[in-house]
């Protein structure tokens, strides 16, 4: 009987420790995960929903996995959720494109050519350094191909190493390196046009 009680106490301690570890993990990743999802989806509420779904799914499916695996798994789930949502949006867009009212909205939401015009400010790079150009950076990141953007955000922003990024993206490490290198090249061309020429 004493054995059973000790076992129960030990289990409770393990569960408490696991909860504490998950709380630390979520606090560490939630803001960056939200920003990454927002940059992918360009919508704050959708990004928040995706982050919450990803947290729940990590706990439901992978709570028994070792802690070092949580981050790649979490971002893998997040990327899948983002992709699902983008796919649903495309499907919805195709369906509602037949409605005249919706077509009118779509025409109105076409990108303004003025946004693509050269900025009169000293230079985008200076704006980045001053922290005033999050929207510009978001626009530039949005122009990257999806996989390049993922590789760049996971490696550069979230700080995952190549192996963890590959695990999160479901591809090889070589592919991650290629995507990342191309993303940096594109960003450099966009942020520092003189250097790119």
């Amino acid at each position: 009987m004493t054995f059973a009680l000790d076992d129960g106490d030990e289990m409770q301690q393990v569960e408490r420790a696991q909860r504490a570890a998950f709380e630390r993990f979520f606090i560490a990743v939630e803001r960056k995960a939200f920003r990454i999802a927002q940059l992918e989806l360009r919508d704050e509420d959708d990004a928040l929903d995706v982050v919450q779904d990803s947290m729940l799914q990590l706990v439901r499916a992978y709570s028994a996995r070792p802690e070092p695996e949580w981050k790649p798994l979490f971002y893998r789930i997040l990327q899948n959720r983002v992709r699902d949502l983008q796919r649903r949006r495309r499907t919805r867009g195709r369906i509602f494109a037949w409605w005249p009212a919706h077509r009118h909205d779509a025409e109105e939401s076409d990108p303004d050519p003025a946004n693509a015009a050269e900025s009169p400010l000293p230079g985008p790079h200076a704006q980045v350094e001053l922290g005033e150009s999050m929207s510009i950076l978001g626009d530039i990141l949005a122009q990257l191909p999806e996989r390049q953007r993922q590789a760049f955000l996971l490696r550069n922003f979230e700080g995952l190493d190549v192996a963890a990024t590959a695990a999160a993206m479901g591809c090889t490490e070589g592919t991650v390196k290629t995507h990342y290198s191309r993303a940096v090249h594109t960003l450099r061309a966009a942020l520092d046009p003189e250097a790119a020429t």
Partner: protein
Amino acid sequence: MRTDGDIERSTRLALEASVAHLDARVRSRLTQARHAALDELRRRPSRGWLSRAFVPAAALGASAVVAILLWSQRPDVASPPLATATPEQGVPAPAIAAPGEGEAPAAMLAAATSDDIAFVLGEDPFDAAFAVEEPSG
């Protein structure tokens, strides 16, 4: 001229600055999401305890069934093997103990149980019990 390293560093700083100053609504939603996930984690152990209790009971029940099946198919206990059966002899008799062998099944069942469970399951679920019962000296 900026290097790739400069571009990487400046974008990282800009992104990090952007998450350092999230508005209260977003921070609140993230906190709610975190608590929902931790609540989910809190609910899961109950299923874990159930499964932990169920597995030994299920293993014991399954092992008893397997032991009975294996014992009943032993050649010295059951009827003659199928290979020796002829059409004239008909279908072999069911594998049950004959009258007069009534004292054998209990001992044989006990012997078959521990041996055959380990063989069928590939592991011995009673290892822990045996380890506890072994004399310390």
